[in-house]
């Protein structure tokens, strides 16, 4: 067998967190270094995987454990594999995870626990993206919720809402969502087992059986999954945890949550819900599109009314996820490509945003926009990072989010016409609030009380450098990203369009 690269990627942060448990809690720097080292291993390996993945062959690669029976009576195998859809997500997780470690470099309150939980969280997220078995996926899917809760209640901050409320809301929302999802998964499992004659929970195996389900079954199963994944991706109207949650969470958690965790929702929607239940998907597609568009416009308007930086970005991420849902609802190659790419793009951008906001908050002790101004003078590097993120957020060409948005627009405009136009109009509102937030924070007369602020430096620069590089490189060379995603989307789309034709749709 080849070197189990995915397993190593998954285990590196876990091993690091295990090591941390035996480190005395006073060893501040050592703790952080070990965390960084663990994440570095993962990051390096996932970069290696990304660039050695054979796009011409496509399909599942770096397969691990597909022949390793895990729970034989449920047909579960410890199946780890990546394809063109999951690999970008894995890479994203590592990029953000690695940056998040450094964004938390200044945490000195109970750092040991913080980094243990953070690493567990990152590993959990990675697990969802590399699992190719629904059970294993679920295992990782919910495991992330609890570390987040603890991270929020200890290291979070209370503003409009208390961190306890924020953490609980976030957690409960996701859990209730996943409760519905779980119903769907269990029902799906039972029904596919009946069809296939034997249990098989690997994505491919399950999908083959599930696609033969009748339309009615597919529809209600899809509805459950849509609710579950939809609340994770903060689909309107199940979004309200998102701004409060991000506002309450510590920087690293906001980064990971907005950056990747949310994407599990979109990822699941594509790779599980749509893939397995194409008839259900085609039934719900128009509704999804409408919800997506509402999400875009509504959250963008919500963001306009915000004065707290984190709330701005929180609402903005809801708005951006609206695009993802809209794109998935197109159910065509361009749309799904755009959805995945947009998730990647938004992940990088949101993580950068949150890390910069985190630094601002750390230094100025406020996130209240009217209390700020002129920071570009005092902390120019911070301003660069902030502006990069802001520009990516409004979809500036040359940054990673432009092309994904463009593809989403093409797909949705083609399929949904007028409805999509409302969504596309979101770019105007986005520009408004992003610029307002950015400009009012960074520009204008510098405030004397912030004259003593130190610009970010040393380890604090890592998020900016890592994520900023990805923003620009991904923006200039979109094919780096799109060729990969496309190699995953094309077969997936072929599978669902076959199923749709059989089911008399399309």
């Amino acid at each position, binding site marked *: 067998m080849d070197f189990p690269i995915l397993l190593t990627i998954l285990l590196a942060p876990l091993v690091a967190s295990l090591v941390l448990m035996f480190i005395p809690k006073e060893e501040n720097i050592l703790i952080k270094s070990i965390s960084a080292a663990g994440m570095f291993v993962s990051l390096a390996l996932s970069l290696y995987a990304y660039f050695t993945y054979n796009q011409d062959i496509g399909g599942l690669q770096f397969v691990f454990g597909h022949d390793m*029976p*895990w*729970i*034989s*009576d*449920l047909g*579960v195998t410890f199946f780890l594999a990546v394809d063109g859809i999951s690999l970008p997500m894995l890479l994203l997780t590592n990029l953000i995870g690695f940056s998040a470690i450094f964004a938390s470099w200044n945490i000195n309150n*109970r750092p040991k*626990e913080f980094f243990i939980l953070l690493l567990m969280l990152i590993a959990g997220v990675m697990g969802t993206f590399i699992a190719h078995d629904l*059970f294993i996926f*679920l*295992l*990782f*899917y*919910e*495991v992330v*919720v*609890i570390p987040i*809760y*603890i991270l929020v*209640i*200890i290291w979070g901050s209370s503003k409009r809402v208390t961190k*306890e409320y924020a953490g*609980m809301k976030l*957690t*409960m929302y996701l*859990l*209730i969502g*996943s*409760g*519905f999802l*779980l*119903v769907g998964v*269990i*029902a799906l*499992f*039972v*029904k596919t087992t009946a069809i296939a004659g034997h249990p098989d929970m690997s994505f491919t195996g399950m999908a083959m059986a599930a696609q033969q389900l009748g339309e009615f079954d597919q529809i209600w199963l899809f509805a459950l999954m849509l609710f579950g994944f939809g609340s994770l991706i903060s689909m309107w109207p199940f979004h309200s945890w998102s701004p409060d949650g991000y506002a309450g969470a510590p920087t690293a958690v906001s980064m990971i949550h907005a950056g990747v965790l949310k994407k599990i929702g979109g990822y699941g929607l594509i790779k599980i819900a749509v893939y397995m239940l194409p008839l259900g998907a085609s039934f719900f597609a128009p509704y999804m599109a409408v919800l997506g568009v509402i999400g875009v416009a509504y959250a963008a308007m919500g963001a306009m009314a915000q004065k707290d930086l984190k709330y701005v970005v929180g609402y903005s991420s809801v708005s951006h996820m609206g695009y993802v849902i809209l794109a998935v609802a197109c159910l065509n190659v361009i749309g799904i490509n755009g959805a995945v790419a947009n998730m990647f793009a938004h992940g990088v951008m949101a993580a950068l945003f949150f890390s910069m906001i985190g630094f601002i908050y750390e230094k100025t002790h406020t996130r209240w926009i009217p209390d700020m101004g002129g920071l570009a003078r005092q902390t120019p590097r911070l301003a660069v990072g902030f502006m990069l993120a802001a520009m990516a957020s409004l979809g500036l060409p040359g940054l990673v989010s432009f092309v994904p948005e463009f593809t989403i627009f093409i797909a949705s405009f083609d399929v949904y016409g007028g409805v999509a136009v409302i969504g596309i109009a979101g770019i105007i509102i986005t520009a408004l609030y992003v610029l307002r937030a950015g400009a009012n924070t960074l520009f204008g007369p510098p405030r004397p009380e912030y004259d003593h602020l130190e610009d970010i430096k040393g380890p604090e620069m890592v998020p900016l450098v890592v994520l900023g590089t990805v923003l620009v490189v991904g923006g200039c060379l979109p094919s780096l990203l799109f060729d990969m995603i496309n190699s995953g989307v094309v077969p997936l789309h072929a599978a669902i369009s076959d199923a749709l034709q059989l089911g008399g749709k399309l």
Partner: protein
Amino acid sequence: MPADMFVLTLPFDPSALTLEMLMAVLATLVLIMGIIVPKGSRHGLGWVSLLGILGILAVAVSLWGEKRELLNGMYLLDNYALFWKITFMTAAALVILGCMRFIDNMGNQAEYYSLTLFATLGMMVMASAGDFITFYLGLELMTLSFVILVCFRKTDAKSVEAGIKYLLLAGMSSAVLLYGLTLIYGLTGSITILEIGRIIAMQPLSPALVLAVVLVIAGLGFKISAVPFHMWSPDVYEGAPTPVTAYLAVGSKAASFAIIMRLFISGLPGIWENWAMVMAILAAVTIIVGNLVAIPQTNIKRMLAYSSIAQAGYILVGLVTATEAGIKGVMFYAFLYVFATMAAFVVVAYYYNVAGSDELKDYAGLAQRSPLLAAVMLVALLSMAGIPPLAGFAGKFYLFKTIVDGYLWLVFVGLIMSMVSVYYYLRVALVMYRDDPVDATPISVSSPVAVTLVFATIATLVIGICPGPLSEIVNGAAHTFFLH
């Protein structure tokens, strides 16, 4: 018919009773040793009991695969019964190992340990019982042992109050149960469960049978604390000494489930349609009420009591379809439930020794005083909530997958409420992790407790992440259920 006819014709093989006999001997031995050993060194009795249980556990494991039927089905030894016995003994071993210090503080170790062992014996009898009398006596042996254990701290008003409540309510519920059983006996002329199953399948449904089933459901529902027969359990759980609560929550409930399945699935399959719906509704109500009332609790034991009510609701789900998969789900869940509950209660018991309180607010900052205790508590609670990758998740998966066809609404109720339950579990996490302790001195966890906790936690994790092996074992056990 001359009486000696029975004696000659009945097959009786005492070796099938090895486990029970060993347990009885062990319990008596501990009792006697308690008299011989001077008061100061009775601490060792815990170890004697523990080693004894482990020995019996080993014997039980070695018996795996045996299949006997004593006295025309009055006593059944199969993998099903063995699995339950292993479950009870595991729980007993954990509670003994984890709570020795608590017991030492309470005094009367000999009586305590021997009663624990007698209770275990009662459960083992229940697991193997094939007829009403054996079942009833096993049940009463267990119940009475627990009654005594509940008011073991007789100087503590709460403990005694719990004791009287438990005694009276248990007595009342056994009367109800018995009433139901007698009616079944009257209708079938038999008290052997398997035979009853055969007879009832041939009879039309008579009104008395309905009444009997209702009363049996009520009587056994009391034992598993299914709503609305659950009222005793929060009070008793709160008042009883914590190790007793732990064992009560696990053992008593598991044994009752063992017999419920025998009774309903082997004995009353003919009227499955009648009771399945009731079971489904009971399960739903139990899940809902248990979880909702747990939310406002401030005493951690009481909260755990309500949560264990909810857990009973989940386990009931497996009963609804009366299939092998359902039985398997129940057994699987009960087994993992042992570890989660034991871990949680051992933490509570241990912390009680340190802080002298079971109030939730006094758990503030536990994570900083003892990361182990806090982490174990959290893992245990989350396992009960069914958060992956902990065992509870796999357990719920097995349970709920049986009822997808036909009782989808119950799947919804169960899974959504299990997510609601996270709300109050996380409040514990909140207090333990967020707050700073009033007294920051670290708590040193003694090694037996640490072993218990780590073992239970690892078991919870392993079953959750890799439920395969356990699942196979349980499959085997559930399979033998229908072979009689």
